[in-house]
């Protein structure tokens, strides 16, 4: 078998640059998608008129169209209406909107598990609705939703490889680019698989720690 480790070592700087790009775009998009999730999930759970159905429509559109089509729509379609974004921000926007739709549902599901008694207790203490939402419902829901949120974040990270289709120099783009000149497909794809696995493992580790932290008050 012909597996050239030295070739990979020589390509490490390029791979590392791709890895950093994947990380930057993914972490930003995870942040934005959570923001979308909290706002959208709140709007859905509170049944805000007009906004609630609008969020529901957004979720349906995103979940029922291919992410690649969404990406091309943003990168090639939006400039036609004067919205021209850089490669990087097109990527961030695409991943944020895609994962945001799933995070909306994750947050909504978490909020649905918060007992009505919590609302009554907050109400009886004269706490305002936003106190209830931000300080009571959301933290309780967050603990319930965390595993689902992590799944969505992991999917986002993996889906960042679609961004090679618009030419963003992330991990998959670097690998495909090198293979086109050096024909070392086995080495390159093995390498980026390992790197993706490592990123996902790190994300899961961080979420695991957070979950343990959130779980502490609930241990007898």
């Amino acid at each position, binding site marked *: 078998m012909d597996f050239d480790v030295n070739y990979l070592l020589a390509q490490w700087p390029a791979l590392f640059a791709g890895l950093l790009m994947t990380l930057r775009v993914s972490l930003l998009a995870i942040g934005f998608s959570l923001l979308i999730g909290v706002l959208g999930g709140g709007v859905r759970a509170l049944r805000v008129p007009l906004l609630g159905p609008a969020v529901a429509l957004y979720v349906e559109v995103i979940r029922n169209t291919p992410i690649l089509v969404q990406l091309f729509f943003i990168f090639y379609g939006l400039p036609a209406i004067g919205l021209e974004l850089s490669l990087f921000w097109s990527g961030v926007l695409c991943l944020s909107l895609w994962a945001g739709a799933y995070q909306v549902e994750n947050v909504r599901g978490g909020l649905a598990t918060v*007992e009505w*008694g*919590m609302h*009554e*207790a907050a*109400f*009886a*203490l*004269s*706490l*305002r609705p936003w*106190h209830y939402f931000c*300080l*009571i419902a959301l*933290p*309780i829901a967050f*603990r319930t939703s965390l595993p689902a949120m992590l799944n969505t974040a992991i999917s986002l990270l993996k889906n960042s490889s679609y961004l090679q289709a618009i030419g963003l120099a992330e991990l998959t783009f670097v690998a495909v680019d090198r293979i086109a000149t050096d024909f070392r497909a086995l080495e390159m794809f093995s390498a980026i698989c390992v790197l993706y696995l490592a990123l996902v493992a790190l994300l899961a580790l961080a979420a695991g720690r957070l979950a343990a932290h*959130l779980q*502490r*008050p*609930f*241990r*007898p």
Partner: protein
Amino acid sequence: MSRVLQVRGLRKHFGEHEVIKGVDLDVEAGEVVVIIGPSGSGKSTFIRCLNSLEAPSAGDVQVHGGSAAHAGDRKALAKLREEVGMVFQDYTLFPHMSVLANIMLAPVKLGRMNKAQARDTALALLERVGLRHKAEGYPAQLSGGQQQRVAIVRALAMKPKLLLFDEPTSALDPETVNEVLNVMKALASEGMTMVVVTHEMGFARDVADRVVFFDGGRIVETGPPAQIFSQPAEARTRQFLASVL
């Protein structure tokens, strides 16, 4: 004696179904009023109307020296709620917050006290119910009786003019019922004005200044415990007491 609570012509219906059929009630400062009655008599709905957890369909509720609220006046009802504390059957402590944070939350967020004042108040109140050592603990680490005592403290921290209890011991293990009742007795003897819905007839007899027998969405009979328990005037009251005592 000054009047703390005045209820006039209170009605509440859910759709076609009328649950409270016109209730008048006055509660004087320092008075402990215990509401008894069969399940489904509307006594829980009634007490929930007193702090507008349920919006009354008709009638008005007035907290003396504070707000008067007619049915339908949402703003006034919300104002009224700030003067009335409530303790629920299932404690409803916020599970992700420490005992101290549960108690400090409302006074701090509503600008009643700064953090240091709220903390001092909370610790002093916890001391009184024998739970100061649990201040840093979480609700899940407490027994039901301890959680309910914390819930009472949480309501007291807002310095309410009136404290409502909706079956505060119904979810408790028999052996922890007394620790909660003792806290309520102590509050009563300190002059707290209280309206209590309960099935604890012993508490009603020993602590109440006045017992209200509720049935079919109406007050059937009201009077001092000695009278209600030994010489009830109404046949329906006698029937109920015979079945629970």
